[in-house]
């Protein structure tokens, strides 16, 4: 008797395609059978007969009937994904990897800092935290984008989330370069870490974004007073199988797909290639 085949994708329908920015789209998907992911885990999404790529769902892990993935057009598979329309069929398998350890965040002041499409995994985390907000002291979500038009989840970031829970949920938003109508902060996302009103002894920070953004955000967090075991990163690596076998995503003694993609900084800071 064959054991379960981990390479087999589930038939999935594209329910909706939302344009977030000029090169980022959110895909609302309905897999044939439920895929119960936890924030921070990833799935392998395939264009049938063409190939697969790993993505972290950005919807709430508590929403049972749909799954959202926010994808930037960056290469061969993502270009094909960006041509998808409502009703198209794709494949999904997963969830794989280690989720954000929510139980370790309980009672703490949580700082999320994300850049560009890095907001996608953080959105799943943010929605999970907000779902049970009374378990956490408070949440500060720092969002950075290149320009105002590059901000993803615009209606959430600029409006909805700002009014969720004025006492416990705060946002700091910045753009690298403004446009004519931008009235908000201008500066790299690391500038949102200036003048934090946080008791660092009871805080954790979760970072996600392009490698260079994660590197400088991590260094700034350390400068501001966070310890390496208070910082969580989502490590992006070339993946093929997603289940710890093909060897592509090896990071030191870890596989990003099996032992990550969420890693606590103190566990990986000694690995030479983490920022490459």
């Amino acid at each position, binding site marked *: 008797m064959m054991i379960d085949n981990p390479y087999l994708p589930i038939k999935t329908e594209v329910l909706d395609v939302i344009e977030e920015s000029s090169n980022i789209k959110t895909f609302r998907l309905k897999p044939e059978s439920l895929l119960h992911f936890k924030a921070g885990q990833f799935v392998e999404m395939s264009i049938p007969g063409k190939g697969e790529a790993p993505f972290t769902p950005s919807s709430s892990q508590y929403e049972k009937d749909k799954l959202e993935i926010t994808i930037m057009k960056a290469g061969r598979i993502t270009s094909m994904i960006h041509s998808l329309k409502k009703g198209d*069929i794709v494949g999904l398998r997963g969830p794989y990897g280690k989720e954000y350890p929510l139980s370790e965040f309980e009672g703490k002041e949580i700082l999320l800092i994300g850049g560009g499409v890095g907001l996608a995994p953080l959105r799943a985390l943010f929605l999970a935290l907000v779902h049970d907000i009374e378990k956490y002291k408070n949440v500060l979500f720092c969002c950075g984008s290149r320009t105002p038009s590059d901000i993803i989840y615009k209606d959430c970031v600029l409006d909805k989330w700002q009014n969720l829970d004025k006492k416990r949920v705060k946002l700091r938003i910045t753009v690298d370069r403004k446009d004519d109508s931008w009235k908000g902060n201008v500066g790299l996302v690391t500038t949102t870490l200036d003048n934090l009103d946080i008791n660092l002894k009871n805080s954790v920070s979760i970072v996600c974004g392009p490698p260079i953004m994660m590197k400088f955000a991590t260094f700034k967090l350390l400068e501001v007073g966070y310890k390496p075991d208070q910082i969580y990163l989502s490590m992006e690596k070339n993946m093929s199988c997603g289940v710890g076998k093909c060897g592509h995503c090896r990071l030191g*003694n870890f596989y990003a797909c099996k032992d990550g993609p969420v890693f606590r900084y103190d566990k990986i800071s000694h690995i030479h290639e983490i920022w490459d």
Partner: protein
Amino acid sequence: MELYFINKPNLDRLVKNLSKTYKIFAPVKADNKRFYKEIGENGLGDSVIGEIRAVEAIKSFYFPARTKIAEYFSKKTSNKEEKPIAIIGVKSCDLASFKVMDYVYAQEPFRDPFYVAKREEGLIISSDCTCYGETCFCVAIGIMPYPTENFDINLSEFDGGYVAESGSSKGEKIIKEYLELFQSAEPYMEKINSNRKKLKEDLLEHVKKSDIPPKDSVQGAFKSKFDSNLWEDVAKTCVECGACNIICPACHCFILMDQKNGNSFERLRMWDSCLLMSFARVAGGANPRKLLAQRMRNRFDKKFNFFFDTIGRFGCTGCGRCTEACPGKIDIREVLSKLQKS
């Protein structure tokens, strides 16, 4: 486990009987090398059970170079029932590679069903080496030139026949089923043990020339050379052909590829090489191992550092196939030796 004696005609009878239930492969000689060939009901013929390892590792019997691992969004095509595979003449270095393969493919969670099925239904009849090859260095990293683990039946060859050792309940069951072909091994044990001792000593003498660091200091020596320009020197003649990855019994990395086939979609698993430029490159263009020297170092990192930490063994069996296969004449013994030099 139990020890028996079987003479050559009886071994041939055993093989002919096993060919009813197994697809049997044994090494045959061509151009002074050994290659696995399917032998059927005609028996062993001029198969070479002793001597040294075959040119190919046995990994392609367990995870082929290119194989379909999923067919999706369509009606399943029925799979032809095939006889399980039996391999005769497997050497100690090949058996050592199972430690790596089992760790990668058969460990929870997400066991690879194709590999697991082949491991469970396959039959391994291994054999002692009776001499060594020029590039062999198994003893330098703690692997003996005679099987000690991971076999169903082992054959120690000498002039009169073979001492057969059962290494698993599957092997024991086969011996019991054909017990009339076997006799007591008592009279021959001394000969076999002295053959093994002599070969081990001869091989130890041979590898002395290569000056490979002691097994327990290899990992430390690698770490000490991490930032050295040794890797640029090693990679100088590398042409990124991937031959070392293909021929190595312990190399196991692969890539998944999807294609359309008629009305259905197929997912293929194909051997991949970490020495190729795009192995670790991400879609956005970033590449943690842009330079060939970094990729060369990474291969040694995985084999002599990662696996030592993860399974307590090297991802190398000391078989020397990579040295034979490399068109750039990169010799793994030389690289290991340089790790301990200043």
